[in-house]
């Protein structure tokens, strides 16, 4: 097939990134690509220009795509050539050097230019800028400023935003006296509120840079050469050099000339296409989507991915829904993070704030309905990673608001990611060091998931994943790629859990293979299979169509695989109660099958370890007890103390309650394993406060219900859900909570993570107060799944499937 012509106007970060994404989707086979770039270079990281100016990086270090890259990818680059017009009827782009490039698809990525405020006297008699006046936008600007700054006295930077402050810092390195003038009342008004701006001002002034706020420059002094500035209030400032860094304006002239719809920038639809022409895509700072124009790099990456998905047909349904903007910056050595709004929007919004002006520390959170809608961190940004995530995912915040601002109760000073030595082990399960994570990022892996998959960090118990994510974000220098699959229920089907449940119900999908066919284009992802099987069992109960290949080996064979490929067998022992007859049978089995180890489990049962696959059916027959489900992502066990029958302290019959709980939940699939406990008194011998679900008997015939506790790879005390007056009420709220978790928990999300994510108030509102009116429905759905329970050992003995228990077969011939 003949390739289509793809022309890209603009060779900055957006244009080049869009092309990279297109190539990554096989776009090199679909398109013959040519690009126009104003500047005579490859593509470089504009964000790092201030480092070039202040001398901390070489020009060569900030290039993203050198000229070789274009040649290697068969891209025609018109470097230093400006595209002038788009002839949309004949589909040709005309450039200032006479070049005409015909296109089938066009991408506009013209970015923006420096905004020049209306100041009198900026221009010399020949119409060019006066000598000594510069903008700060490109490598060439950097070079010119550096050349001019030698041996000058005083420089003024117009603009107290990020770029202006960076420019000021850079100029200081040349030995100049530097002053910053900001038109409005505080610095970095895009990101900071007045209070934070004032703190930043004093921090910066300590570094020897003077800051003037409410300083509106109206006139530049000097005839051919700039000699000073005059302000609205009559003040004058003499200087030898002026750098204008007063914001940016999208480059939209070519779009206007070509008749595309333009407001503040070029108006695009959800596929990043101009609303005036479906063959023209727009990406980056020159695009206006749902009224928003983004000037930061993260939204641009998101746009580039959607554009590439759509233009290559890799995902014809790809859509951009706008970006939530969160930034982490280092301005003149001062660390800051800002996200969302900087002021409360109405009376619902709650402000949590901390100020320590002398140290230059300021923290402010804006919270609505228990969720973060904005934050400013200045000076100390140790909580930035956590808050950014909470902001991005709209996660419920912990009740203890102080914990949002500080790491409380940590034994020693938190070592920042930056300070960690490269050989420090981050993942203790798979032995992955910080250095190995950084190397993986350097080799091109730009998302936490990609790094985890290549290094195996975080793939063991998972407790280090947050830290791994922080290291990756740090190593990416803010250019971390958002991985959309973190929002999916399983990575192999691009739907969130509610969407997936809806689709399965609407399309009547009852088996895992049907789901892959209907919702994943027939592409099977092995790692996604068990999560889907669990969900379908939750949705369909007895109508679920099981497929053994969709299950992890433990749940195919209903035993727990061991390191030597033998299995462990745990019979059901509700409430941890057994009797001599059972013990005798277990002992007989252990002898008969030469079981290498008999051990008590943490969940009050007996484990027979080291059983050969071939022996499993006979072991089960001889035991004549049902499976204890000690192997699945299911309800596991309900540990209990002896309760009231013998214990002299017992207030409630924890043992019989544990047996009732086990009877209700046995074998139930859930997002992760569920471990429970019942305690007969507040002494809590069965450790009910650190279980996914725990109940504690208290005086007066009452039970306290705790959810979201943990004491494994993660330790957390459960939250008190409610106190009830009967065992029946315990079972009622247990049913509702478990079913709600089964329906809304992400796969492999433990109940403690789920409770933290949703927030205990929300869960209480649904489970106890029944504010959504679904309480009874949840109980019924759980009861239906409970009724569908069959002992899996009996099932397997009746219908094992071909060669289920053979660990080695012989051939026909």
């Amino acid at each position, binding site marked *: 097939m003949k390739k289509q012509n793809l022309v890209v106007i603009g060779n900055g970060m957006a244009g080049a990134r869009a092309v990279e994404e297109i190539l990554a989707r096989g776009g090199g086979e679909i398109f013959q690509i040519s690009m126009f770039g104003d500047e005579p270079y490859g593509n470089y990281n504009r964000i790092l220009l201030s480092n070039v100016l202040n001398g901390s990086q070489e020009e060569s270090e900030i290039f993203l795509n050198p000229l070789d890259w274009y040649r290697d990818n068969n891209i025609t680059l018109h470097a230093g050539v400006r595209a002038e017009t788009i002839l949309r009827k004949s589909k040709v782009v005309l450039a200032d050097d006479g070049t005409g490039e015909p296109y089938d698809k066009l991408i506009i990525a013209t970015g923006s230019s420096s905004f020049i405020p209306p100041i009198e006297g900026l221009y010399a008699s020949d119409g060019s800028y006066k000598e000594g006046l510069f903008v700060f936008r490109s490598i060439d600007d950097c070079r010119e400023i550096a050349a001019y700054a030698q041996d000058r006295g005083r420089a003024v930077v117009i603009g107290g935003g990020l770029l202006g402050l960076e420019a000021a810092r850079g100029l200081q390195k040349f030995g100049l006296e530097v002053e910053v003038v900001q038109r409005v009342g505080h610095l970095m008004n895009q990101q900071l509120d007045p209070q934070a701006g004032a703190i930043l001002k004093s921090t910066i002034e300590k570094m020897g840079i003077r800051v003037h706020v409410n300083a509106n420059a109206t006139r530049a002094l000097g005839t051919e050469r700039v000699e000073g500035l005059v302000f609205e209030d009559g003040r004058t400032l003499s200087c030898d050099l002026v750098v204008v860094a007063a914001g940016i304006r999208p480059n939209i002239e070519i779009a206007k000339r070509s008749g595309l719809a333009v407001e503040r920038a070029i108006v695009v639809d959800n596929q990043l296409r101009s609303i005036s022409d479906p063959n023209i895509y727009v990406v980056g700072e020159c695009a206006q989507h749902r009224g928003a124009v983004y000037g930061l790099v993260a939204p641009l990456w998101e746009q580039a991915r959607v554009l590439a998905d759509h233009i290559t047909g890799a995902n014809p349904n790809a859509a951009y829904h706008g970006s939530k903007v969160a930034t982490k910056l280092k301005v003149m050595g001062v660390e800051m993070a800002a996200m969302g709004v900087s002021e409360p929007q109405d009376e619902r919004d709650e402000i949590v704030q901390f100020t320590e002006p002398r140290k230059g520390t300021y923290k402010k959170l804006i919270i609505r309905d228990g969720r973060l809608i904005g934050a400013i961190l200045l000076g100390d940004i140790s909580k930035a990673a956590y808050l950014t995530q909470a902001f991005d995912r709209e996660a419920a915040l912990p009740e203890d608001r102080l914990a949002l601002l500080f790491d409380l109760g940590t034994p020693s000073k938190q070592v920042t990611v930056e300070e960690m030595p490269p050989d420090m082990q981050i993942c203790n399960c798979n032995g992955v060091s910080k250095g190995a994570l950084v190397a993986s990022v350097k080799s091109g892996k730009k998302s936490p998931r990609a790094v985890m*998959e*290549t290094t*195996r960090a975080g*793939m063991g118990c998972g407790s280090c994943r947050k830290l791994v994510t922080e290291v990756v974000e740090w190593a990416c220098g803010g250019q971390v790629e958002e991985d959309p699959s973190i929002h999916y229920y399983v990575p*192999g089907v691009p739907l969130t859990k509610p969407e997936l449940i809806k689709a399965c119900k609407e399309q009547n999908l009852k088996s895992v*293979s049907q789901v892959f066919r209907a919702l994943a284009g027939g*592409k*099977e*992802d*092995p*790692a*996604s*299979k*068990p999560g889907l099987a669990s969900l379908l069992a939750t949705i369909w109960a007895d109508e679920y169509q099981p*497929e*053994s*290949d*969709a299950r*992890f*080996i433990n749940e*195919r064979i209903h035993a727990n*695989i061991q*390191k*030597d*490929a033998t299995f462990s067998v745990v019979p059901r022992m509700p409430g941890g109660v057994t009797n001599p007859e059972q013990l005798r049978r277990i002992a007989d089995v252990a002898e008969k099958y030469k079981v290498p180890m008999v051990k008590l489990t943490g969940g009050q049962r007996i484990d027979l370890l080291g059983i050969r696959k071939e022996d499993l059916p006979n072991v089960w027959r001889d035991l004549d007890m049902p499976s204890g489900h000690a192997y699945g992502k299911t309800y596991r066990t309900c540990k209990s103390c002896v309760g009231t029958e013998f214990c002299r302290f017992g207030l409630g019959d924890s043992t019989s309650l544990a047996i009732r709980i086990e009877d209700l939940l046995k074998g139930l699939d859930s997002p992760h394993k569920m471990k429970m406990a019942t305690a007969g008194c507040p002494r809590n011998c069965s450790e009910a406060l650190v279980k996914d679900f725990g109940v504690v008997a208290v005086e007066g015939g009452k039970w306290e219900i705790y959810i979201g506790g943990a004491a494994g790879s993660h330790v957390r005390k459960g939250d008190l859900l409610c106190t009830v007056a009967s065992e029946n009420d315990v079972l009622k709220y247990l049913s509702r909570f478990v079913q709600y978790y089964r329906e809304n928990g992400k796969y492999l999300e433990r109940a403690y993570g789920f409770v933290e994510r949703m927030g205990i108030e929300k869960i209480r509102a649904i489970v106890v107060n029944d504010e959504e009116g679904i309480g009874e429905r949840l109980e019924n759905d759980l009861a239906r799944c409970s009724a569908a329970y069959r002992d899996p050992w009996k099932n397997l003995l009746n219908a094992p*499937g*071909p*060669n289920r228990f*053979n*660990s*080695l*077969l*012989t*051939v*026909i*011939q």
Partner: protein
Amino acid sequence: MREITIAPLSAIPAGEGRNFEIAGRKLAIFHTRAGAVFATGAECPHRKGPLADGLVGGSVVICPLHNWKFDLASGKPLLGDCPIETYPARLNEKQQIVVSLP
């Protein structure tokens, strides 16, 4: 190369694997849901996990012990740092699995 007829396709449920002893070697044979068959060494190079007990999807298997992941056709590791051996496998006209050994 010599070809050995291993078993009828029905000996392995779709989407799963089984181990076979073939001429003194232990091989894992897989039958994917798409109807393809693959033959590989039986053990994961990492800690000798039984690959035949792994999850299979498309032409990928995940070792049940520590989630190393391999492409069944090429043997290349997709997660992990060491490949597995692969052997050409096909179905004959009687729907039997045939494996070629060197």
